[in-house]
């Protein structure tokens, strides 16, 4: 019965209650939604890291990380492979040759890490082939007279392999993307001009367009003019097994685009045989063995097992290679709790004030209840329930609203185009698809109820201090 009374009391002063409830709704929505955005960002980062860059477990010689010399190959590769394959939870294993060197074109050169890979095996373990920009080639499918190399978009831009040309197709693309016709006609004057670098192209079109137009459409314009001449070549130079400088010309067989600029700039892939030959390495020699697991959750346990079995080598899971990723997932829960606590603390002021008012304007009623025999515990409980109801109604509506918005934006995505440069530089996509799991909602509910309980303490104590005699005095 007390529950029913508390609930009805909430609605005695509709306006006042609605203001508090709206505030709680907004606060909870804000907290949950921002968390969904951040959470999705992290999930996407981990997915990229595991499925495109690192896979689950890496094995190399103990000193490989500090001294990445080409001579530092895995001492007994077949043994390592059989250990990995026989471990429960491992689905695929592959080996890579890893050599640091320089990639250069006529215009530029830059340091890269060259990975010689087993193409067929890697196709099973890494999703990189999905990231190849359409029109730039494929994942080592063709045989040509030149050695093939797969590079990242950032590297391709760095080496001026990617150019920008406005063609008729570009203009069509811009029309499809609903770019304003004023902008399109201005860009037409650049038709046919080839720009060898990102910055030169940007400078050219910024001269023609208004700053607002440039800011609004830069992404579409760059996409439209993006052009890659098939069959571009670059030279890879490095030290071979005898410490002699060696190298060869490679034909770019494909360009991949991920959200990780660092990866795009340094990771270069060639079929292992070609690299092995150039480096003077023996058949079956590898620097690194990589294992893929059934799912991410097995990482900790399987890595431990492999470490025990392969004690002579350096065995690392993706969490150890990029500890910041592992940490962030742990942190996310804590960061969220802190964020929500702050918001709820701010809301608590409003709830306390409201409850206080509610108690003080009902002194006679409360005095009467105490007189006819309602004990202190029940009265405290009655007030606490009222406070909890206020917070819960606001809290649940906040969660409901955020659930709806998350569902919508989860599909359409939020494009933080303006910050894509900065975010992709550290490996995060600027295109967010907010998502959140049950755990957050549970945490939120607990915090909301707690807020209701704590906010009621002061008003309830005030109520209990009332003297029934004075409270019911009406003369």
């Amino acid at each position, binding site marked *: 019965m007390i529950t029913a009374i508390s609930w009805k009391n909430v609605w005695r002063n509709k*306006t*006042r209650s609605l*203001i*508090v409830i*709206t*505030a709680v709704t*907004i*606060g909870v929505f*804000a*907290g949950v939604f*921002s968390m969904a955005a951040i959470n999705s960002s992290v999930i996407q980062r981990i997915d990229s890291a595991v499925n495109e860059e690192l896979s689950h477990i890496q094995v190399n010689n103990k000193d490989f990380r*500090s*001294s*990445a*010399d080409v*001579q530092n190959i895995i001492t007994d590769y077949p043994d390592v492979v059989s250990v990995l394959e026989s471990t429960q939870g491992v689905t695929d294993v592959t080996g890579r040759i890893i050599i*640091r*060197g*320089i990639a*250069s074109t006529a*215009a*530029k*050169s*830059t*340091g890269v890490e060259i990975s010689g890979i087993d193409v067929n095996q890697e196709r099973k373990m890494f999703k990189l082939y999905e990231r190849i920009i359409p029109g730039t080639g494929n994942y080592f499918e063709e045989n040509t007279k030149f050695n093939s190399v797969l590079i990242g978009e950032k590297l391709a831009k760095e080496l001026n392999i990617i150019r920008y040309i406005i063609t008729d197709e570009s203009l069509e693309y811009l029309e499809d993307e609903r770019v304003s016709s004023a902008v399109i006609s201005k860009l037409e004057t650049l038709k046919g001009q080839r720009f060898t*670098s990102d*910055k*030169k192209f940007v*400078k050219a079109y910024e001269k023609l367009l208004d700053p607002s137009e440039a800011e609004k459409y830069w992404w579409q314009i760059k996409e439209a003019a993006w052009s890659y001449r098939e069959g571009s070549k670059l030279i890879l*130079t*490095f*030290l071979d097994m005898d*410490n002699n*400088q060696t190298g060869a010309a490679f034909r770019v067989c494909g360009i991949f685009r991920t959200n990780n600029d660092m990866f795009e700039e340094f990771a270069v892939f060639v079929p292992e045989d070609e690299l092995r030959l150039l480096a003077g390495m023996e058949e079956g020699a590898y620097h690194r063995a990589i294992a893929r697991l059934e799912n991410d959750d097995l990482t900790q346990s399987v890595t431990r097992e492999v470490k025990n079995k392969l004690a002579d080598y350096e065995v690392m899971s993706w969490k150890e290679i*990029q*500890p*910041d990723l592992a*940490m962030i997932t742990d942190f996310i829960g804590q960061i969220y709790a802190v*964020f929500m606590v*702050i*918001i709820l*603390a*701010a*809301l608590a*002021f*409003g709830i*306390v*004030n*409201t409850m*206080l*008012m509610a108690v003080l*304007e009902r002194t006679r009623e409360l005095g009467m209840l105490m007189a006819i025999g309602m004990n202190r515990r029940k009265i405290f409980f009655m007030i606490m329930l009222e406070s909890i109801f206020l917070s819960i109604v606001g809290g649940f509506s906040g969660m409901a609203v955020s659930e709806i918005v998350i569902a919508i934006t989860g599909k359409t995505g939020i494009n*933080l185009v*303006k*910050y894509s*440069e*900065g*975010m992709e*530089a*550290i490996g995060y996509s600027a295109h967010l698809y907010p998502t959140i799991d049950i755990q957050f909602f549970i945490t939120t509910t607990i915090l909301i109820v707690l807020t209701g309980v704590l906010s009621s303490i002061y008003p309830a104590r005030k109520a209990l201090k009332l003297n029934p005699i004075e409270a019911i005095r009406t003369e």
Partner: protein
Amino acid sequence: MKDYQLAWKNLWRNRRRTLITAASVFFAVFFALVMRSFQLGVYDRMFKNVIESYSGYLQLQHEDYFDDPIIDNSFEIDQALINDLKEDQNVKDVVPRLESFALAASGNHTQGVIVMGIDPEGEDRVLNIRNRLVRYKLKDEVVDNLINDTIPERTKKLLDIFRNEAYTSAERMMQDLDISEEDSASILPVIRRHASFPNEFLTSDNEEAAVIGEGLSDYLQTDIGDTIVLISQGYHGTSAAGKYVIKGIVKLSTPDVDNKIVYLPLETARYLYAAPGMSTTAVISLNSNDDDDILQTGIRLRDRISEPLTIKTWQELNALLVNQMDADNKSGIIMIAILYLVIAFGVFGTVLMMMAERKREFGMLVSIGMQKHKLAKIVSLEMLFIGFLGVVAGSIASLPVVFYGNIHPLRFTGEFARMYEDYGFEPIMPTMMPDSYYIWQTVVVLVILVIAITFSTRKIFKMNVINALRA
């Protein structure tokens, strides 16, 4: 009695409500200020690190160099040009550099590096590069020796954690090893004996020596006295190769750069790259580093120089960092906005309750002859007082935190610190001293109050006195 005196007295009639509402404003303001202070402090520090160790506030470049930073886009610089620039009132120094890429090799290790040909004196004047020399290094042998020597237990434990750390100053090392002021007198000499690192910077501008970054020396496993070979492409495509003795090791605060930097004397670099008299950039140091002064100086200098030279600002030189900080900044602002929005509702709720509670009182006042606008004024003053009470209290409460955080910034350790360093940031969180952002908090609270006041004033004017008296 004056209006504001009456307003002030009214506030204390319902002390609880006044205090709770003021407390909510206090909470928001305090929290917003502390958070902003740390955020802005971190940005400031990050930019300062990069500017003061690398880019400088303004740079003179060939106009094509920015888009295409290759050695072929270098420009000729001579004393006459430098003097011309120095004539500007805000220019303190002009320090030329020749910067390019090379493959560095030592023993079996190779690494891509940034080669910076510098004028050692000039670079030291402008960027205090000598301060960056490593003075103490906790190498394995050093740590083992120290553990056997007489130093406090807790320091011994910390020594293990900080193996292989290099320090440019004693203070930082003492901080990491938790050596207090009193103990330092006895412990420092012991540490100096074991961990001192004999180190020198470049002296002339044409010796065949190099100074490299600590991260690079670790990777290449080279030490002072070892030789390093540099191979690259020179001006107009000539091949470049040279052998240099490592004379010194520096530690830069941006790990990204620290892992790849090789300083050569300017003429040595020019010789290596076959680019006599050329520079890729010239760092311009200023007397005043105010945002506005930097801008104005840039404009003035642009008028002084002629094609194909140009002036670049630090924002342009660090566009990526600016973008990242901007994103982070916006996210911080959003969070504070949410906080204030929530508090605003609290304030509105209070206003509502207050109006309802005092209906009869207002009716009475107006019926005995008080003008409505005077009543509205008093009520408005009451709300302004509450708001300012909260703002002032919040601001004052934030000051100790801000001051402390400025002098003793939050320093991350362990995993967290590594994570920051991996991203290329220094793992430190200083605060920013009170600045315009303090004013913003007052502005926001004012806006909230104005909206609340509008509401209450309207209610007063719409009030029907008879109904009010019956309440």
